[in-house]
């Protein structure tokens, strides 16, 4: 109850802040009060998030959200991560990121009419997300207080869970700044760069996570949620490359952020992420229409033709595929036929102009990313093999050496040791009481190939394993790292 009150107060103060920022466009005297109200909203949001964290750390399973996402046996760091592992909590965290970034932005640069206008747009946006969060209510009480919770899905119990979601939400929050700044005519290149860096780190971490998780379709499975997270990134990338009509892509990036929220939270799409149906999900559609108003009012077809055509085509290809997923399942061959040629054209154009490019590091990163990702998409191989105790998959000779089991508070672990001519594999199967089995793959990496092995089952002298040979995946990570590093170095200029 207290949590919902705190969250509601945050929403109320945010709405009040919006009204006064809106008023201060004509009379700047109101801007100071609006700013104080924004800080108050942020303080209440922080209080509510701390309260929810307290419920997690004290195992208060009378709160439905805590019951569904935590368990007594989980480590403290996992209980902290559980804060954003479910729909309501991640929405609360998004609010936190929005208000935190807005509070910094309001203090950065001149506090003039342009800033008041930008803040009015920004606080309107944060208020809308806060209102949805109040209705989603992460503090809902259960009638029965359970002794233990259901727990976080074991697949999510990885270090990536600590970093990927928060970075993505901070990226989304900065995209909102980009939108509102452009709308009010404030210089935004630095903001766009920060948003791009955060989104890139978020996407790459997500890809790394998916790669290490068996059954998530590799580093990029063209899953609708992955695709929708790519859209704001593509829009900001197009923003950097556009000669005219930059604002179109700035507006589009936030529209795509809200579209991602719609895809993730409305339950309309099939994905490796599985969603509960949520009537509030359709509120995001209304937000998309509201955010699209500036595009409808200001945008001209000529701007589009002088803008970044390749990135526009990429955006449309990914958007078409993702929207089609609302009705039908889209095979990844669609993306390989349409997106990869566009990617190739972009890379060829980089190669043509690499000497005069002011962003050499980033563009070298893009070339490596292209080589790595297309190699994986087209040439990855998989084979299931029985080791009795020896076996061979492709040119890899495998010898099942031993297996041992041990347990911790959360799970029973079965760990096998498999020797090979490329290295030693130590795949695991984790057994959870209420979640079944989760397989942890073991990898042997070389500069050009990854050997990726999952244990299917074992008995005394027999092990059945699944071996993947993934070519040039290291180029994906190296290319991505160069892109991020290159843009961070430019941020300092």
């Amino acid at each position, binding site marked *: 109850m207290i949590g919902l009150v705190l969250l509601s107060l945050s929403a109320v103060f945010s709405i009040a802040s919006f009204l006064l920022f809106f008023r201060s466009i004509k009379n700047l005297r109101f801007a100071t009060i609006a700013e104080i109200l924004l800080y108050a909203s942020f303080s209440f949001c922080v209080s509510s998030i701390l309260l929810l964290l307290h419920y997690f750390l004290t195992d208060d399973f009378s709160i439905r959200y805590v019951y569904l996402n935590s368990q007594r046996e989980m480590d403290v760091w996992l209980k902290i991560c559980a804060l954003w592992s479910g729909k309501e909590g991640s929405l609360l965290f998004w609010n936190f990121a929005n208000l935190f970034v807005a509070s910094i932005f309001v203090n950065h640069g001149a506090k003039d009419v342009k800033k008041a206008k930008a803040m009015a747009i920004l606080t309107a946006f944060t208020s809308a997300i806060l209102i949805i969060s109040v209705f989603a209510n992460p503090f809902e009480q259960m009638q029965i207080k359970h002794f233990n919770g259901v727990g976080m899905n074991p697949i999510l119990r990885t270090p990536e869970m600590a970093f990927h979601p928060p970075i993505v939400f901070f990226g989304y929050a900065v995209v909102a700044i980009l939108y509102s700044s452009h709308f009010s005519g404030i210089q935004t290149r630095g903001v766009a760069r920060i948003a791009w860096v955060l989104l890139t780190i978020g996407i790459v971490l997500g890809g790394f996570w998916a790669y290490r998780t*068996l059954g998530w379709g590799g580093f990029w499975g063209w899953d609708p949620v992955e695709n929708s997270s790519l859209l704001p990134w593509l829009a900001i990338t197009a923003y950097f490359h556009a000669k005219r009509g930059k604002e179109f892509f700035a507006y589009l990036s936030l529209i795509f952020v809200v579209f991602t929220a719609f895809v993730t939270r409305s339950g309309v799409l099939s994905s490796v992420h599985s969603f509960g149906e949520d009537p509030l999900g359709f509120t995001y559609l209304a937000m998309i229409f509201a955010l699209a108003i500036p595009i409808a009012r200001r945008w001209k077809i000529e701007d589009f033709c002088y803008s970044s055509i390749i990135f526009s085509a990429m955006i449309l290809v990914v958007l078409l595929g993702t929207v089609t997923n609302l009705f039908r399942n889209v095979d990844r061959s669609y993306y390989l036929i349409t997106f990869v040629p566009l990617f190739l054209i972009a890379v060829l154009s980089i190669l043509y102009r690499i000497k005069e490019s002011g962003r050499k590091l980033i563009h070298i990163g893009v070339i490596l990313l292209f080589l790595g990702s297309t190699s994986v998409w087209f040439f990855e191989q998989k084979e299931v093999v029985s080791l009795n105790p020896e076996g061979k998959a492709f040119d890899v000779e495998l010898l099942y050496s031993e297996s041992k089991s041990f347990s911790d508070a959360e799970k029973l672990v079965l760990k096998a040791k498999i020797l090979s001519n490329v290295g030693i594999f130590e795949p695991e199967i984790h057994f959870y009481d209420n979640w079944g089995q989760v397989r942890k793959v073991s990898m042997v990496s070389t500069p050009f190939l990854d050997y990726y092995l999952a244990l299917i089952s074992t008995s005394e002298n027999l092990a059945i394993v699944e071996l993947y040979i993934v070519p040039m995946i290291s180029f994906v990570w190296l290319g991505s790292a160069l892109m991020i590093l290159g843009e961070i170095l430019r941020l300092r200029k």
Partner: protein
Amino acid sequence: MVRKVFIAFSAFIALAIFTLYHSSSSSLSPSDLIKIPKAENVVVQGKVENVTRNSEYTIFYISDGVSKVKAIYKGEISSTEIIATGTWENEVLYVKEILSKCHTEYGG
């Protein structure tokens, strides 16, 4: 120039839509699937039940709570909820590809 760019762009998008039409298929539940005698590249969603393995294949059932279909896959199933793509023939789904549903509402 503007017109040429616009025409080229429109042509590409038309091509993309054509490709999309031929690369997409309807997603079915086991209850829907058992009504069809045969289907290729069909996508089935549901919960995994009764998993058994031999040295080469994983044999299991995909259930939607009402009906279930037998499935055969050369590989590992790492989730209790899946999206499987394959060929439906003689009341067996020969699975080519499986995506695990991670059973979370996490929206990052």
